[in-house]
């Protein structure tokens, strides 16, 4: 056997475990759920079929289309805000914090997430409530006369999400900032660029792949999450994952729930296509 063939066999051998795992424990279950999304409910029984009815319902029923729209709006808002908050934070850690403290700074940013997602979400409820810390502080400072209604609104959902994803994005953006050779910024300064121009013309474009990778991850994880809108959002509006849970909760409408999940994946696939150009994973 030639070297090239041996090389290829080795490659397949190394990739095989991951591919096999993905095939057995992802593709197969996913195929089952995909098939289910075309099934029909007759009474309370799931009847196998090739019925696009569930997808038609999603497209036509205002409540479902509305949930889809809410999900996309929230995910986009969260992604945008998180990027705007995380970028300066990552930049400060990368450029202003002394090198030896940078790792500690990052680890500290991750630690709060080693508690418990659910408990943390309830803690947010206390922070954002009418008698919570935020309103208490603002009232104490006489900045507001009546408490702000934050808890049980979309704002609370967004804040809860932003909290988590600011951490995640700080990590990915930081990584793309520190691996940038410092000479680019110097060259720009040397040619007469001020701080803002350096950022705008050099640092920002060069860190874009890291930002987009993190933003994509944020969008995907955010649009698929159930807990934050459920706890913090107070059901002020429904998101797609909540709708999925509702279909499953008592009536067990698996076909519709599966179709909703597939629709969710379709949105993610669109996001993937939009971000594709900049995603690290597909650079060959």
């Amino acid at each position, binding site marked *: 056997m030639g070297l090239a063939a041996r090389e290829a066999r080795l490659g397949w051998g190394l990739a095989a475990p991951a591919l096999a795992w993905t095939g057995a424990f992802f593709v197969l279950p*996913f195929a089952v759920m995909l098939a289910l999304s075309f099934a029909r409910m007759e009474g309370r029984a799931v009847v196998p079929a090739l019925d696009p009815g569930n997808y038609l319902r999603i497209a036509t029923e205002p409540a479902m289309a509305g949930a889809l729209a809410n999900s996309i709006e929230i995910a986009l808002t969260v992604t945008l805000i998180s990027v705007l*908050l995380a970028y300066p934070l990552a930049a400060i850690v990368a450029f202003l914090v002394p090198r030896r403290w940078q790792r500690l700074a990052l680890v500290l940013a991750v630690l709060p997430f080693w508690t418990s997602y659910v408990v943390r979400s309830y*803690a947010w409820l206390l922070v954002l409530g009418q008698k919570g810390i935020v309103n208490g502080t603002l009232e104490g400072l006489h900045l507001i006369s009546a408490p702000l209604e934050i808890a049980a609104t979309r704002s609370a959902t967004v804040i809860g999400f932003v909290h988590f994803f600011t951490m995640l994005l700080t*990590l990915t953006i930081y990584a793309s900032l520190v691996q940038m050779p410092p000479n680019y910024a110097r060259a720009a300064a040397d040619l007469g660029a001020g701080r803002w121009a350096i950022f705008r013309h050099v640092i920002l474009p060069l860190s874009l792949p890291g930002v987009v*990778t993190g933003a994509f991850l944020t969008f995907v994880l955010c649009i698929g999450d159930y807990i934050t809108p459920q706890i913090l959002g107070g059901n002020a509006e429904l998101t797609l*994952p909540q709708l999925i*849970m509702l279909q499953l909760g008592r009536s067990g409408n698996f076909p519709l729930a599966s179709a909703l999940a597939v629709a969710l994946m379709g949105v993610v696939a669109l996001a993937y296509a939009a971000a594709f150009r900049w995603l690290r*994973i597909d650079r060959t």
Partner: protein
Amino acid sequence: MRPLAWAYLAAAYAFIFLPVVVLVAFSFQDGRLPVPPLRGVTLDWYAKVLSDRAVVAALWNSLAVAAVSSLVALVLGFLAAHAFARVRLPGSAALRTLIVAPMAVSSLIIGLGLLSVFNGLGIRPSLVTAGIGHVVINLPLCFAILYAAMGDHQRAAERAARDLGASEARVLWLVSAPMLAPALAAAFFLSLTFSWDEFIIAFLLTRFDVTLPVEIWSMLRSGLSPAINAVGALVFLISAGAVVLAELLLLRRRT
């Protein structure tokens, strides 16, 4: 400019720590409800949690599931990233997309699908099946991080090792893995974080031995309680202590 930046840093950390401070503070609540006002300070809830066999067992289960599943995801992701970075396999772009695809699919779907597949195979739900599910969601993460981190630098070193007579396994173990140590650590800890907090798959794919999020979920069914805060706080305080200690030791050794 600089004071502004430091102020921003402080504000950002305040934001990140705000709910955790609240969470920890009310774990000391002397009363049945972890809501303001703080009525007094007690360690009773910690005592209660630590003497609750179910919680302690769930803690260990969670740690085991998170550690083992992250390790498996790391190894699989590492091998696959290595293969794709090194050998030009036909259809490799499509296969790479396939490996990262689970990231885009709701855990609920993965969990339900796995449940029916396992049932079809006659496999009982257990911590092992939950771990398998966690590998499915962590593998894309590990793969993506490691694939992005692999560069010409270690390709050259790997080649040198082969030239000096190293078998493929030893190349991986003695050269590639140590050189990728930072990326491996990052991938491992992110996986650990995700697995630690994962609920839906763990709920669907376990029976009587459950992980911490599932245990917390059932504790929550009887309503909010400082005991639940104490569980979160305990994990936080222990990991924070460990990390800060490790960091200080490392720093001291280096200087």
